[in-house]
């Protein structure tokens, strides 16, 4: 009798007691947000803060010393008339188009070649994927040496084949040489994305097309390509994201010289070589808005494409 009353009192106490912070955080209602706290802190510090900071200084003139002077939209006006910046922007788009289209074409060709299972497949795939995880900076240093005019392996081989040597780093060619380095590292990526795509295609449709006497070209254009389009979309989106940020291959080769200055490089040069934080922030904000605009459109397409493959 006595013990019962005691436990009742205890139960009553438990109900009245305020839940501890831990209990609130892990409760059914709040647990999903609790899990996100660390991520949100990281995002606030590393995304929101730089964004606000750059937005603020893009309206100021400041060289890291002394007081920042408010100049209104002058930095932005200067930006739109800055020939070097507009050229860097144009070059970035050029690199983007060249690299993405070459990677897709090479990738598609090789994916068709390797789409059926074959002996030694694991070894071929293993070797082909090797460059993808190697530091782009180190690869660009390597290719810089291989494309050297006097001792570079490429020119020595050309010479041995009876051809003439080429100035790979001339102002006319340097940008294309950098494109080549990037394409060389990344074509295995699009190849194996598309191999994965080709292997997951339903076989019966293709058998039906064969029975109906469709030519291989017709089957490819009307069946294979449309079915691969979500994956092609994924490749375009992801490569665009990475290529807009191209920086390492420039550092390893031309360092922005011989007409190869790209978007991130000119921001780096303005902010960290000339220490013009105000104008550098303006460029950074511009490049950020551009990226977000491109990526927001692409992210929608990507999500659609993901819906198709998941």
């Amino acid at each position, binding site marked *: 009798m006595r013990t019962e009353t005691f436990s009742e009192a205890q139960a009553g106490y438990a109900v009245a007691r305020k839940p501890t912070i831990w209990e609130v955080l892990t409760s*059914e209602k709040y*647990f*999903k947000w609790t*899990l*996100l706290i*660390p*991520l949100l802190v*990281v*995002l606030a510090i590393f995304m929101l*803060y*730089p*964004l606000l*900071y750059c937005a603020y200084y893009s309206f100021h003139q400041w060289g*890291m010393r002394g007081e920042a002077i408010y100049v209104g939209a002058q930095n932005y006006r200067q930006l739109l008339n800055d020939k070097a910046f507009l050229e860097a922007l144009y070059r970035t788009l050029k690199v983007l188009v060249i690299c993405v289209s070459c990677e897709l074409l090479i990738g598609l060709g090789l994916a068709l070649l390797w789409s059926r299972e074959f002996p030694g497949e694991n070894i*071929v*795939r293993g*070797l*082909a*994927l*090797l*460059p*993808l*995880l*190697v*530091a782009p*900076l180190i690869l660009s*240093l*390597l290719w810089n*040496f291989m494309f050297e005019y006097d*001792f570079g*392996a490429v020119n*020595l081989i050309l*010479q041995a084949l009876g051809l003439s040597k080429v100035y790979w780093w001339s102002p006319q060619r340097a940008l294309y040489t950098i494109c080549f380095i990037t394409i*060389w590292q990344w074509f295995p*990526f699009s190849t*194996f994305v598309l191999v*994965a795509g080709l292997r997951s295609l339903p076989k019966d449709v293709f058998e039906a097309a064969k029975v109906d006497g469709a030519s291989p070209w017709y089957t490819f254009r009307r069946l294979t390509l449309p079915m691969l389009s979500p*994956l092609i979309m*994924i490749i375009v989106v992801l490569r665009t*994201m990475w290529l807009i*940020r191209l920086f*390492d291959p420039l*550092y390893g080769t031309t360092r922005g010289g011989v007409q190869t200055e790209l978007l*991130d490089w000119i*921001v*780096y040069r303005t*902010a*960290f070589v000339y220490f013009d*934080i105000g104008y*550098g922030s303006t460029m*950074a904000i511009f*490049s*950020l808005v551009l*990226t*977000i605009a491109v*990526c927001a459109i692409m*992210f929608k397409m990507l999500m659609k494409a*993901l819906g198709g*493959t*998941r």
Partner: protein
Amino acid sequence: MSTLGKVMFWLVTAFVLFVIVAPLAWIYLTAFKSPNDIFTTEARKLIFFKPTMENFNRLFREFPFWDNFLNTVIISVSSTVVVMVISSLAAYSFARWNTGKGHLLFTTISTRMFPGVVAAIPFFVMYRNLGLLDTRFGLALLHIYFNTSFATFLLYGFFKEIPEELEQAAMVDGYSRVDIFRKIVLPLVRPGLAVTAVFCLVWSWNEFLFSFLFTRVAARPVTVLISSFWGSIEVQYGPMAAGAAIVILPTLVAAWFMQRYIIRGLTFGAVKG
């Protein structure tokens, strides 16, 4: 396939593999060449030369290679550990409850598209004031920032694959949410955690922009040391190749053993290669 078709298939395959592997092999060849064989104009010497350890000896003797290598190891391992904790919690929340209805997930992923230089400008000024420039801690913080979004998105895909019924069954058995996460969900996504961790290690290992801007001497990662061999007064191809040969080895090994997961990782989990 016809015999001719087979011959063509293997010819093309061999050619492609040669194009991919030869430049990588070139690093290892150059690493063992004497300066005379590096600066040669004879094509024959590209492959036939007398191997020497000279470049490695110079690298270890004249440059702080192992100090910088240690910096890279410390920074990439410590940042990966923190990233894995933050990301696995967040990814689970996104995968199970669709927290933020996709918008928050988009914000997260967009940090990966964020131009590195945008973050670099304010942090450079801030680090200078706080005395965090050229410290391993400061650089590791920046690596946490750029790896978190990637890891969250990749893990999101792995968490999505766990059937919700399992968790409901556990709740019926009286497990709390925390217990479910710790004792049921985490063991199930262990392969996903491993793959994600290796990717984070590799990205941090290879990272250059922040490493180059935020370190000088004490915390300098090894990629920055290697980049310094090119562009100074004389170009030091020998030590550069020797250093590169050592530094890329772990990433080559990772690529070889993770070949099944590379495509999945690089597409943020969208394509299962």
